[in-house]
Each structure stands twice: as C-alpha cells, then as structure tokens.
C-alpha cells in the first residue's frame, strides 16, 4: 500500500441532472468507495455537465483531468466509434433480463475493451432505459415515421436508422430541441421515457410510442493509466462501487420510468403500446440497418458485431 497517507480525490462526472438515475448510481459509487477505503479516497460527484459537454467529458477522462465519467455510448463516437455498434436498432434484446445477461457476456466485454486502445478503461455499462419515439402522432409502424423530422444523436447508425425508416434524422443541440419541438421545427425525437420526462419533451409532444427500438446506455469510464496506478484494494473498491452503482441506476431508471409514465399520462399525453406483430414489421424493415452496422466498422467491427449477435441468439433463442 502507498506510504503517503494523502487522501485521493476522485472527480466523478456525468451529464444528467441531480437525483436522476445516473446521479443516484454515481452517489452509490461514492458511498461504496469511500466506505471501503475507510476515508483514504474521496469521490466528488459533478452532475449536469458541470465539468463540460460531450467532448469535454470523454477528452477529460482520456487525459486524466477527470478520473471517472458516466457518459452515453454515443459520446464515444469520435473516440472509439466501435462502441456505437450498441446504437443499432432492433438488435439488442428488448427484454431487460436478457439485456443484463448480454451485458455480462464476453462478447460485450470484448467490445468495451476496445476503449483501451485510446487510453480509457470501461469498467461497466449502465443500462438507462430503452429508446422510445415521441412525436405528435403514434409511431406504430415504420411508415408512421415517413417524412417526419426526428432529432437523433450524432451517430452514423442512428442516421441510417432514420433514413431507412423514411424519416429525416436531424442533429440538434439539446438546448434547442425543446423549443424546436414546441415550434414544430422538428416533429419528434427518440429517448427513454424518463429522459423524455427530464428534458420536458412531453410538454411539447402529443404521443409517445413504446417502440423499444434501442437502448440509451451509459459507459462507466476511467482513465486507464490512473486506474492501473491505484493500489489493488482501491481498484477493488471502485469495481465493487461501480457494480453496486449499476444496480442502483438500473433499478431507479425503471422506477423513474414508471413514475414518468404516470405523470406524462396525467398530463394528457398518449402512450401507445407496440404489439408483437407491429414489432415484427419494424424488425423486418430494420434488417438493412443491422447489415449497415455490421459492415460499417471494418473487420474488427464485423467480428465484434457477429460475436454479440451470436450471444444474443444464445440468450434469446431467436
């Protein structure tokens, strides 16, 4: 163990608001790490992009200026594009238990380990809900998206998804999206229900459809060099904290989703279930997107993608 008893201070940053599922998970990490290390390590949680936006978070952890960040997978698009394979719609299992099993598989581990090529260690992947479409009409079949201007995160696969379904994928800053939906400069967007609620998009949309077409999950990233320089017991404490934090985040995401659904419904927004038959139509139409994703990132990407696909088949039996 280290000879100096100087307290180690860890900055843990995320882009979500205080009290959100991610924030609760981050605070769980803080609690566990501080307790396990008996005060040798202090974790400061910075919510709401206080330490910077998309580029700043990833570059921050890469350069070690921020020790740990929790960011959406899409943020890695410019740093380790392979990670955006997880954006592929109608690919990951729509059942939560299946998804959890997949996330603890070697195939996903292999994908997450690719961030080590850029100096980042991915400790875990935190599920924060399935993507749903919101618009001013129900989206129950791909045709319903035709001609709609839909805000998407900047990711080649998500653009391809919008294009394939006949929508116009529009990138737009979060700070403009609310106003743009309100004035109908854009027609819809995709996010998990609790995010739709947090961002207040339900105030300016009439319909939410439970398409469950993808995930918006978070990577728990640490600076690799820094992490490896830590004493083994501190590393173990962090890993334990991240595992516990993951549980808290997933559980509170689903609590938040239920709560958000209730409020959204009470405010007069329609929430539409998607039947298995309707889902099959989507899945059929999404096949070209899956092929696009499989081939978009070269041989390395293809191998990772095929392995994940095989693992999904094994888990779901489909």
């Amino acid at each position, binding site marked *: 163990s280290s000879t100096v008893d100087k307290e180690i201070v860890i900055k843990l940053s995320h882009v979500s608001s205080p009290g959100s599922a991610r924030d609760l998970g981050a605070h769980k990490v803080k609690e566990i790490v501080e307790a396990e290390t008996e005060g040798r390590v202090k974790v400061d949680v910075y919510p709401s992009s206080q330490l910077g936006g998309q580029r700043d978070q990833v*570059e921050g952890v890469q350069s070690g200026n921020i020790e740990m960040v929790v960011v959406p997978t899409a943020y890695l698009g*410019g740093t380790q594009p392979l990670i955006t394979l997880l954006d592929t719609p109608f690919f990951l299992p729509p059942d939560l238990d299946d998804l959890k099993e997949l996330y603890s598989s070697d195939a996903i581990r292999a994908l997450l380990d690719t961030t080590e090529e*850029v100096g980042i260690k991915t400790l875990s992947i935190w599920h924060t809900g399935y993507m749903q479409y919101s618009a001013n009409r129900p989206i129950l079949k791909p045709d319903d998206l035709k001609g709609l201007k839909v805000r998407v995160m900047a990711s080649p696969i998500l653009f391809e998804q919008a294009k394939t379904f006949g929508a*116009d994928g*529009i*990138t737009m*800053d979060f700070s403009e999206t609310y106003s743009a939906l309100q004035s109908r400069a854009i027609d819809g967007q995709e996010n998990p229900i609790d995010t739709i609620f947090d961002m207040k998009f339900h105030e300016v949309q009439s319909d939410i459809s439970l398409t469950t077409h993808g995930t918006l999950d978070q990577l728990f990233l640490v600076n690799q060099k820094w992490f490896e320089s830590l004493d083994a017991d501190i590393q173990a404490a962090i890993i334990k904290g991240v595992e516990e934090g993951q549980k808290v985040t997933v559980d509170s995401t689903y609590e938040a989703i239920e709560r958000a659904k209730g409020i959204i419904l009470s405010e007069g927004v329609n929430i539409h279930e998607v039947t298995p038959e309707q889902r099959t139509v989507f899945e059929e139409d999404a096949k070209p997107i899956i092929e696009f994703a499989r081939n978009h990132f070269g041989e390395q990407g293809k191998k990772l993608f095929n392995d994940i696909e095989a693992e999904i088949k094994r888990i779901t039996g489909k």
Partner: protein
Amino acid sequence: MSTFSSLSQKIFRNVDRYISHFENFVIATGLIFISGLIFVNVISRYFFGTSINWAEELARYIIVWITFIGISTCTRFDDHVKIEVLTNKFRQSIREIIKKIVNVVNTLLALYLFYLGFVITINMYNIGNKSVTMGMPIWLLYLAVPIGTFLMSFQFLKKVLNK
C-alpha cells in the same frame, strides 16, 4: 547597419501585412461560410426534408477558429476589452511604462498559451480522436489555438518593441 535595420523593418512590415490578410481571410470567409451553411441547412430541411448532419458541428468548430485567429487581429487594432479607469489617471510617461510592462506580460502569456496549445494539438494528433459527426480529426480544431496565440504573441511583441 541602418540599411540593414530598415530592410528588416520592411520585411517585418510585409510579413505583418500578409499575416493580417490571412487573419482577415479566416475570419471573413469563416463567418460568411457558416452563415451560408446554416441557412442552406434550414432550406434543405424545410423544403427538401434532408439536413446536413455536420452543419452544426462544423459551424461550432469554425467559430473556434474565428475566435483564436480573431484575438490576434483584435490585438493588432487594440480592440480587447479592458478597464482603463485607473491607468488613465496616471501621467503620460508612467502610463507608457505600465503599458510596456502589461504588454510584456501579455506576450509571455500568449507564448505560454501557444506552448500549451501546441502540446495539446500534438497530443490530439497522436490520440487520433475524431469529431462525432464529420469524422474530422480533432487536432484540426485544437490547431486554432497554437496558430492564433502565436500570431497574437507577435502582435503583443510589436507593442513592446514599438518606440
């Protein structure tokens, strides 16, 4: 000796003029370009139902370039926002001395920023990060800093050396 120094002054002035043209070019075409880009993006979204995915990202990056190149031009024309309530109260000769000292500080800061900017640009080049939408190498964004602050240090230095 005097012909030599007048020659070097002439070269200096010419170089400075070319730099000035370069700065104006970056700033003016940058601003016109992004205005046009966002305009075209709106037209294309509204009338043709497609949008230029990278428009927003590129516009942001060009603003960063305009800013860092522009601060050199601002220095040339002494445009930077500053507070001169106190210094204006001093005698002319003292004011000149203060200005010299301040400009020495400014030059050193600009050179230090140049150094930091250079280091981080090289880092970004080695890391190979790309922008999320365009896939543009991020070091091109960072490059604005070493170039802009180097040009700015040159302008501050001019103020230190002038009479």
